[in-house]
């Protein structure tokens, strides 16, 4: 870090938030929400991950190049997952060729 040291209480607050979010995600997982279980769990995971990246890894104060690389990393992961799933989810679709 080339910037000023962050006060301990900021880190402690983030730590506390992460524990609360963990407890929340465990609690919610015990409820029957169908499809929303996945969405809620993933949203909470993204929030926790973002807190770690922004505060513990100090990306809040990092250069835009660093932020660009992090964004690119997750974007590329998204490319892999989206295109992979696009095959599996569309395999059952039949091509409508009545117009031929």
């Amino acid at each position, binding site marked *: 870090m080339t910037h000023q040291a962050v006060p301990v209480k900021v880190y402690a607050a983030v730590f506390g938030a992460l524990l609360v979010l*963990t407890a929340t995600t465990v609690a919610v997982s015990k409820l029957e929400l169908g499809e929303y279980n996945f969405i809620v769990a993933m949203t909470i995971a993204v929030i926790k991950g973002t807190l770690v990246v922004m505060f513990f890894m100090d990306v809040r104060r990092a250069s835009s190049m660093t932020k660009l690389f992090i964004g690119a990393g997750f974007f590329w*992961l998204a490319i892999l997952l989206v295109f992979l*799933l696009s095959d599996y989810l569309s395999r059952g679709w039949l091509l409508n060729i009545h117009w031929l």
Partner: protein
Amino acid sequence: MADSEAILAPQEPGLRHHFDDSAQQLESSTLGMWVFLVTEVMFFGGMFGAYTVYRNMYPEAFASTSHFMNVTIGAINTGVLIFSSFTMVLAVRSAQLGQKKALIAFLVLTLILGCVFLSWKYVEYHEKWVDHHIPGPGFQYADSRYAHQAQILFYLYFAMTGMHAIHMIVGAGLLITLIVMAARNRFTSKWYTPVEMIGLYWHFVDIVWIFLFPLLYLIGHTK
């Protein structure tokens, strides 16, 4: 410019000769570590992709196997890792402030928490061993409707958590290296780059777990 000698001017501790100044060196180290972490995202990403595909393909088998995931241990381990990230960032902060004793204390604490995580992991894996849920010739699954698919899913469970555990072990080794370096007064408030870089690595391993935990342990658990 004296290119041929290593430059170790007192005001530029740890500067390597091919860099112009320590700001450039720090910028390079930081960018280098982030590029490496991006490669790690893609490395784990392949397994997340495989897992997503099979979860999508076999939802009932998935629901069946999720009952064997020990949520309690998983939740404890999540807490342990988050705590270790907290102690790690405090270690980096201590280094930044030149507080050698605090730095070593926090590094040791982080290492202990990492070992706690690995111990619980061992307990979990042992549980799986006893249940014959480790893929391979000894694999057995009670619900014969899903036996084959369950083996695939357990294979991915072990691949993902195993790869994560390997990264933790490497991290533990790196922490030990840092502790030894700190004890030998290698770090000052002007130069503590390895602490920062290994801190970034450690947080990344924590983030992987933050995603592994709900994916493997929590979803589908209610069914």
